[in-house]
């Protein structure tokens, strides 16, 4: 009996140790080595390191997307600058959202055919051997309508962490707090983290969804019209939040709101429908595109004459 107890204890010890070793692995990912006792400190350092991890460049090369016989996007090419905010604008049905969903391979879930290449820091994400889960961990996405999970606020953030193997409580809590602070929700809701996320207001829900993407510490953020379902005050908050992300993340954002694109984007890509298929007409720095566009369509669209 005694023997059994000691064996159980040593097994427990081993398990605890392996938990810590996972932690250390996390820290090493941030190119840091640290000792066992200062687990807390260690996680903090790892976070700082992660923040510094440079956001990547995204190169979209000659992407075709088709649903059955319908071509949604033809020959789209786009270079998304590292750490910048790039806005995709254009009328409905020109393949903006489809393009976005190719970048994190969410297009896999839809009955569409995709050809071409999407390179994130030189790695082709459309290659069949790409680890899609890992890709989606690095490329966060926020949708048009807030879609918090029907769980508590904290579980909305904890579930993705747990699913990606971050299981220790302290590390989880730190990441959760950090993500909520990043979106400015911490002060508002830290007293009611265990409430259902569905009780939050629309704007808060959307910020929670952004936090849910940020909690995995991605390098790229895809925003699919993140403000279109929100009231003006919430839109202002979210815009400010997106601008704060500049430099830390490569942000690609679809929007219908040209004024918004002009306010917050560094670069703008204009999509259009020609010959029954979506395409990218012109890409350039925001002000340049708004004031001195090269294409006639761009000028007409951005000045509100067409589209």
């Amino acid at each position: 009996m005694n023997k059994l107890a000691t064996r159980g204890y040593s097994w427990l010890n081993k398990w605890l140790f392996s938990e810590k070793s996972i932690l250390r692995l996390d820290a090493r990912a941030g190119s840091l080595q640290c000792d066992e006792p200062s687990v807390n400190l260690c996680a903090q350092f790892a976070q700082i390191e992660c923040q510094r991890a440079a956001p990547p460049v995204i190169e979209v090369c000659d992407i075709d997307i088709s649903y059955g016989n319908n071509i949604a996007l033809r020959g789209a090419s786009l270079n998304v600058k590292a750490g910048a905010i790039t806005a995709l604008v254009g009328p409905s049905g020109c393949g903006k959202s489809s393009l976005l969903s190719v970048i994190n391979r969410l297009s896999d879930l839809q009955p569409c055919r995709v050809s071409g290449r999407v390179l994130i820091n030189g790695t082709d994400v459309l290659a069949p051997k790409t680890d899609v889960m890992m890709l989606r961990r690095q490329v966060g996405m926020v949708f048009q309508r807030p879609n918090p999970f029907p769980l508590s606020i904290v579980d909305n953030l904890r579930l993705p962490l747990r699913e990606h193997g971050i299981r220790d409580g302290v590390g989880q809590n730190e990441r959760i707090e950090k993500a909520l602070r990043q979106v400015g929700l911490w002060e508002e809701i830290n007293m009611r983290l265990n409430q259902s996320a569905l009780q939050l207001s629309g704007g808060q829900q959307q910020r929670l969804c952004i936090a849910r993407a940020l909690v995995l510490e991605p390098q790229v953020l895809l925003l699919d019209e993140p403000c279109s379902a929100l009231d003006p005050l919430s839109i202002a908050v979210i815009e400010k939040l997106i601008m704060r992300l500049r430099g830390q993340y490569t942000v690609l954002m679809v929007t219908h709101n040209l004024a918004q694109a002009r306010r917050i984007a560094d670069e703008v890509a204009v999509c259009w429908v020609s010959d029954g298929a979506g395409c990218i007409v012109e890409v350039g720095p925001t002000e340049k595109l708004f004031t001195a566009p090269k294409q006639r369509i761009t000028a007409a669209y951005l000045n509100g004459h067409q589209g």
Partner: protein
Amino acid sequence: MHSGLALRCDSRLLDRVAQTLLWLLAALVCGVFCWLLFDIVIEGGAGLSWSFLSQLPEDAGRAGGIASILVATLAVLVVCLSVALPIGLGTAIWLAEYSDHLIVARWVRRSLQLLAGVPSIVIGLFGYAFFCRALGLGYSLLAGGLTLACMVLPLLVGALEAGLRAVPEPLRQGAAALGLSQAGTLLHLLLPAAAPALMAGLILSVGRALAETAALLFTSGYVTRMPESLADSGRVLSVHIFDLTMNVAGGDHYAYTTALVLLGLLCAINALARLAVGVLFNGNVRRNEQVFSQ
């Protein structure tokens, strides 16, 4: 102008008539249920006592109680659910989540629909031929439970698959965009969201299983003694009611009392299922209290 006003009055009258009619129909449905309940309680309530539940039937059910009948019923139900629930759950998950674009799925769904439409006497015949004879289980609670499992399987699968499919698409998208595994999404998001449907299917199945008479007459048998194992034959409540009413002169009172017990059992199992699903799936929010409260 004038005719327009008249028309409006006419349509208002029509509205009122239609509304009254609908109310009457609703009252009719309610009335039928109340009458049924009232009848059973009036006729059978007097016989209901602890000794009725705890004694063995005597004199072909004219005296004594229904202890052995209750035990047999519960045993058949447990066999039925413990077989049908895992198979049904697995099938529904496969149909709803993994079988897209597969032709096999269409066949599985079609055969389930057919199975749902098969009269219970035919399923009983199959159960008798397959479980009792071919597998050599004889008249036994096990054979009865398995036969019932075949019968409730389409109900369970149908309800649960519909529940899974009704989970809003944005939830799946959100989970996929976070790189959650399919299993994790299923376990933490989809199944909890489909839990009410699971419960509805379960309650429907239990109701159907408890009410079943024809299929059990020739699979689990109708002896009234206390079953000692699943290999024994036994008489379930519905068969007991049938037998008391049709074959036993003077057994009507106890038939009513047994029916009352059957209704009570159904309500109790519904409540239990509700509770179980609530504890299993809706505990998520409560479980995390006080993690952050230091």
